[in-house]
């Protein structure tokens, strides 16, 4: 088979780090080629080089056998290379159609001419089974549909090499399933796909070949069908990885967090959280499972104080914290690993050390007479960096923005666990992370449980739900529709409850 794209001996250096070190990759026509590696392995950098966002120090890129120079994304686009970024680049107050044509608009006498564009988009949408509503505003549609818009954007520009940068990180299990089908269809139509990921299941499912990178270096290219997941993970991490989480039986004791009849209202919508009651006991991991957007975010924000509640009560260690301030809740023993680490979890322009004391800077350990104790903060941050293996360019001084996603998440987890909370609330703690980091974070969460903490875990990933939890609560449209022991339920059955087609009896143990 002919190679559509060849990247030969690419080396890209950033100050203090070699992001790509002599990497070679070949993409055949009509194949799905996965690019596997841990966070910081250089996958995104390599694709950014191909897309013209970075210029490599060494190496060359060949398109259909000819050397090409890609100086910017426009060059890439002209060569038929398109990219769906991990964080979508869409204009939120534009419609779907406007976003698709943006940058490639038809005009007639200086005015926008959308008729042809609409026809072409509808054709693409039909042909590849990419359902979108052309006139919906981006801000009104789901993340899954936004991704379809990004894909159509590439197809609208007649791109034949499609780069997907961790496309499944933001999707629900159902949406992932759909995306996989879309990718297969695209490949069948002769498009060549480069697929950045660190999820082995997905590679197994769709990819033909897989190139593995580790710490910027090329490790090898393998045929997916003949390689096991264990072999791939070993290539990626450089050591054997235990893909299933080991944990002992839980021995829950007293109630730590009790939520009674909690409701949250939202203007113009039905209550996103509707009369929810449950409790989390010392020494157990309770998992809220559900499809994204069924009230998990609101539930957690209500418990942590980020969102006002309509009615209900929240007790922590028997103390009513329903109307306590966020600071009071933090101090009285709630730790919160937030869903969106960039929005809530970190102040990206602050150095790592400042971020590690984000809820504790006012304590006598870190400040005195209104002034920060820099040495103490730095000492503490060095301790956490060491203890939790947070990797960054300049240690405590590293600006959080420049750290990789996995290490940002590690920093948040270090901070929240080191607060020694009574109740740890973790929302999708492993979202977008690689196998090694996931293994690590799962271990930490189980250790917290074993030390007698109450853990409330919110997760969209069923694997995580089944592996970690001691008790599963299924949330659907803002209500708890079932409570299960993970050992007594299958993933398929859980899926039915999550989709709302089954309802269980919730009130025996929950209150």
């Amino acid at each position, binding site marked *: 088979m002919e190679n559509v794209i060849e990247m030969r001996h690419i080396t890209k250096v*950033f*100050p*203090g780090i070699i*992001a790509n070190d002599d990497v070679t990759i070949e993409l055949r026509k009509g194949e799905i080629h996965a690019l596997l590696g841990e*966070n*910081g*392995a*250089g*996958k*995104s*950098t390599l694709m*950014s080089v191909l897309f013209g966002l970075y210029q490599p120090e060494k190496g060359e890129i060949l398109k259909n056998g000819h050397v090409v120079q890609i100086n910017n994304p426009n060059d890439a686009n002209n060569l038929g290379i398109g990219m769906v970024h*991990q964080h979508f680049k869409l204009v939120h107050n534009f419609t779907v159609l406007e976003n698709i044509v943006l940058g490639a608009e038809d005009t007639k006498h200086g005015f926008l001419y959308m008729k042809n564009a609409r026809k072409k988009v509808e054709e693409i949408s039909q042909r590849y089974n990419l359902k979108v509503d052309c006139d919906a505003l981006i801000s009104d549609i789901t993340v899954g549909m936004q991704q379809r818009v990004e894909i159509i954007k590439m197809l609208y520009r007649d791109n034949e090499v499609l780069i997907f*940068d*961790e496309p499944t990180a933001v999707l629900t299990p159902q949406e992932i399933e759909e995306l996989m089908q879309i990718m297969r269809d695209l490949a069948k139509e002769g498009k060549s796909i480069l697929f*950045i990921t*660190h999820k082995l299941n997905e590679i197994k499912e769709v990819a033909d070949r897989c190139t593995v990178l580790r710490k910027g270096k090329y490790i090898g290219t393998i045929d997916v069908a003949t390689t096991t997941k264990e072999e791939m993970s070993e290539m990626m991490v450089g050591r054997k990885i235990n893909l299933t989480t080991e944990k002992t039986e839980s021995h829950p004791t007293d109630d730590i967090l009790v939520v009674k009849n909690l409701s949250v209202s939202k203007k113009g919508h039905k209550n996103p959280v509707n009369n929810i009651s449950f409790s989390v006991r010392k020494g157990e991991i309770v998992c809220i499972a559900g499809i994204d957007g069924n009230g998990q975010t609101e539930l957690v924000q209500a418990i*942590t104080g*980020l969102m006002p509640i309509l009615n209900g009560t929240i007790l922590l260690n028997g103390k009513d914290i329903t109307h306590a*301030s*966020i*600071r*009071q*809740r*933090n*101090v009285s023993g709630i730790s*919160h690993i*937030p869903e969106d680490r960039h*929005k*809530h*979890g*970190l*102040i*990206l*322009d*602050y*150095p790592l050390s*400042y971020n590690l004391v*984000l*809820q504790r*800077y*006012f304590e006598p350990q870190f*400040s005195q007479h*209104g*002034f*920060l104790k*820099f040495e103490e903060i*730095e000492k503490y941050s060095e301790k956490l960096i060491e203890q939790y293996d947070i990797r960054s*360019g*300049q240690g405590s*001084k590293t*600006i959080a*923005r*420049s*750290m*990789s*996603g*996995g290490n940002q998440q590690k920093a948040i987890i270090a901070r929240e666990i080191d607060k020694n909370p009574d109740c740890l609330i973790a929302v999708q703690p492993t979202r*977008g992370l690689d196998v090694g980091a996931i293994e690590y974070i799962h271990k930490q969460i189980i250790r917290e449980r074993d030390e007698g903490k109450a853990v409330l875990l919110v997760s969209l990933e069923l694997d995580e739900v089944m592996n970690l939890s001691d008790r599963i609560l299924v949330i659907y449209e803002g209500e708890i529709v079932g409570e299960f022991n993970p050992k007594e339920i299958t993933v398929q059955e859980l899926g039915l409850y999550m989709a709302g087609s089954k309802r269980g009896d919730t009130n025996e143990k929950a209150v």
Partner: protein
Amino acid sequence: MKKLFKSEASLNFASSVTAIIAGLIIGLIVIIIANPSNALNGFLTLIQGGFSNGTRGIGQVLNNATPIILTGLSVGFAFKTGLFNIGTPGQFVVGAFVAIYIGVEWTFLPGAIHWLVAIIFAALAGALWGCVPGIMKAYLNVNEVIASIIMNYIGMYTVNYIVPLTVFNINKNETLPVASSAVIPQFGIEHLIPNVNGGIVIAIILVIVIHIILNKSVLGYELKACGFNRDASKYAGINAKQKIVCSMMIAGALAGIGGALVYLGGTGKCLAVVDTLAPEGFNGIAVALLGLSSPFGILAAGLFIAHLTIGGSLMQIYGFIPQIVDIIIAIIIYFSAFALMVKGILANGFHFKKKPKVKEGQ
């Protein structure tokens, strides 16, 4: 911390200087077009600025710099906390009026503290003017730019209304001069530069104070956290609304003190009743931009712009009409305001520091 700060500081300095040089070059072109025969002399005078008049000139520079350093600090401080305080003219003028009123009327105060009391009340008046847009922003989500612009006019017209009823000199259509006990002492620097006002000393002290608040204090940590990421600071348990009001009050107080320092300076200058917003207020924005919102940067920028203004007025000797001089100074300031953009170019072009944005999963 130190090493990072050093390279960051040198980058800031380099970008401001580059912006200034670009401004000067464009300024020179305008000078050549306006008056080719005297262009070189004119330009040299402009650059010489305050230095062409010996210590007298330096004193003038310091005196002119004082109010714009304060309004610059006001804008820069608010900016560091994520707010755009465009209300400095209003805060400046109410501060000035309160200082003058106390300076004229409260002669019962002993000389040693009369001026200090006047400055403190000016700060309070400025803080009051700043806190209105702060409260509107924090609790009603009204854009602080609009609210502060409105407060500018309310401040100006209120002062114009009250002055004729209180400390008015009807012959000159301005306020009465303040009592001698209300004049800020010169703290001994008059031995070096005879015509200097004590205000510059207070301005420098405040530059240091603001630097410490921003970089060393818990309050600064909280304020900057709110400025960088309001959601995350809320998550951290910081009362973001309260911090917005607090930040605007401090910013307002700084501009208010700026007003006090001008009219308590002992130059005999009085507040005229005119329907224009105080230019010192808006100049603060340029100073803050040129100084990249850092307190010491603002100090340097304030001195530089004062220096140019003096140079500009001396250019009139060579037949440059005041309007042309104003245009030239405006061009230089205008270009200087691009310092932030230049910083971006320098940082990316010459790798002064690590690229700020590294993609996830690299």
